[in-house]
């Protein structure tokens, strides 16, 4: 192994290993000095994860989180100097992490927090002026064939747990409103101007939004939504998307 390969391997291991060929001018055990680098590497990566997953950390406590993150860091160190991207698959790691099995919603909370980081740094786009949507609505014969483009930051998550309510409950010190943790929720995550928002929507709206993301025209997206939820309200859903700056453009459907 090359010098850096040995050094890197020891940095990501537990306390015992120190690479060969090191020395200290005062004759101190090089292991006591190498430990500074190991602490820096593992500590800084654990901190990066804690910053990206603050509610996951709150749910399990800092000690548990750090221990779990240390195992993740050792097994899955970053493969890019862009630390904003680090920990993309922490949710999958949590899903298979037996000591966290008592919190079955933890992996979905990690997925939600990952979407927030992605939305925060996603590309910019100006929201659609409401007048353009209104003008389109005044041409009912063409309306169904319109494709609505969504903000590049917009992401969705389907969870079997009330992750949006649980996330919201951790955003302030106020008492939690009552909610059923086992009531599944559909989360819409997006950046509105400079702020990342997390919104719970119903199944119809989620189906509609996912269909738009897959470039289906309005009438097809609405049909899917109605199929998923008979009470789906198209006007209300478009109003929600407009209000949160989620729509950025509309154009006629391009037939493949």
């Amino acid at each position: 192994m090359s010098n850096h390969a040995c050094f890197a391997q020891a940095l990501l291991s537990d306390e015992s290993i120190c690479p060969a060929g090191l020395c200290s001018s005062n004759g101190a055990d090089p292991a006591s000095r190498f430990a500074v680098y190991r602490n820096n590497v593992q500590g800084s990566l654990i901190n990066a994860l804690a910053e990206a997953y603050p509610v996951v950390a709150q749910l399990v406590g800092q000690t548990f989180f750090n221990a779990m993150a240390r195992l993740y860091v050792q097994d899955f160190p970053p493969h890019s100097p862009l630390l904003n991207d680090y920990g993309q698959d922490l949710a999958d790691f949590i899903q298979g992490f037996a000591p966290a099995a008592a919190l079955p919603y933890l992996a979905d909370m990690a997925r939600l927090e990952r979407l927030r980081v992605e939305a925060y740094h996603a590309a910019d786009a100006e929201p659609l002026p409401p007048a353009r949507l209104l003008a389109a609505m005044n041409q009912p014969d063409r309306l169904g064939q319109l494709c609505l483009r969504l903000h590049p930051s917009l992401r969705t998550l389907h969870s079997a747990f009330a992750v949006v309510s649980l996330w919201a409950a951790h955003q302030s010190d106020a008492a939690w409103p009552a909610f059923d943790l086992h009531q599944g929720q559909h989360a819409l995550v997006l950046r509105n101007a400079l702020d990342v928002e997390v919104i719970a929507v119903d199944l119809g709206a989620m189906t509609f939004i996912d269909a738009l993301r897959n470039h289906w025209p309005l009438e097809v997206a609405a049909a899917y939504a109605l199929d998923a939820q008979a009470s789906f309200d198209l006007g209300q859903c478009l109003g929600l998307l407009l209000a949160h700056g989620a729509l950025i453009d509309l154009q006629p459907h391009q037939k493949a």
Partner: protein
Amino acid sequence: MNSALIHNTRHDIQACAPSLPPRAGLGLKSEHFKDVLEQRPDIGFFEVHAENYMVAGGPFHHYLGLIRADYSLSLHGVGLSIGGEGPLDSEHLRRLAVLIERYQPQSFSEHLAWSSHGPVFLNDLLPLAYDVPTLQRVCDHIDQLQNHLGRTMLLENPATYLQFQRSTLDETDFIREVIQRSGCGLLLDVNNLYVSCINHQRDPQAYLQALPLHAVGEIHLAGFAEDQDSLGDRLLIDDHGAPVDREVWALYQQVLERIGPMATLIERDNQVPSLTTLLGEAAQAQALLHQAQVQP
């Protein structure tokens, strides 16, 4: 290519390089974006970590764009791994060029260190053995970077905690040789200098004396944490988490006496205090810069 041609290329690169104003500056932290825009503090420049801005959009670009319109900018890389055993990451070079094109910083700097090996990024500035093969590799990487960016860079002296048995050169000789061969400048981190000298029982005065101070293009000042090694000796850790130490201020003053006023950054990356507190430290540096200016 003959050596005269190489020399000319370097000369051209240097001739068009802008520089930071010889004033005190601050590291720009995201928690201070709004405060900076509201207060518009009177400082010489801001410095940002390049990697934090290698994102598509959002608040980081929004605020940096607004702040760049009014301030000089130093772009400071922490992830290129110039001392790495493998080739430089071409994708990372491309991202750097894009950022530089977008924000037109007055200075670009990186570290005399390595941080990646193979596919793995270790997120720390790791120490290098000072031998001839490493010297060649570092010079090659700096040549490649400077040619790619079409400008010279500043190389920061490291804070280190251990040494390598296979080192054959002093750190200062190594740095002087890199600067001479590659034509890059020196980002003199006075805290790193102090930390390394204490950790390796070197005399900071002698270290300073041995550095190519004519090449300094920026100075960094920061605080350190204090630990002990297995012998109970002081082991200083460059954690950027404390105010600048008294000893470091004293060394800084000596540097200014030697080279005159020079762009000086107050660096704080951990336990970041209020903007007002950091501005107070920048004002301390500015006062010393002013003294250096008025001296004959």
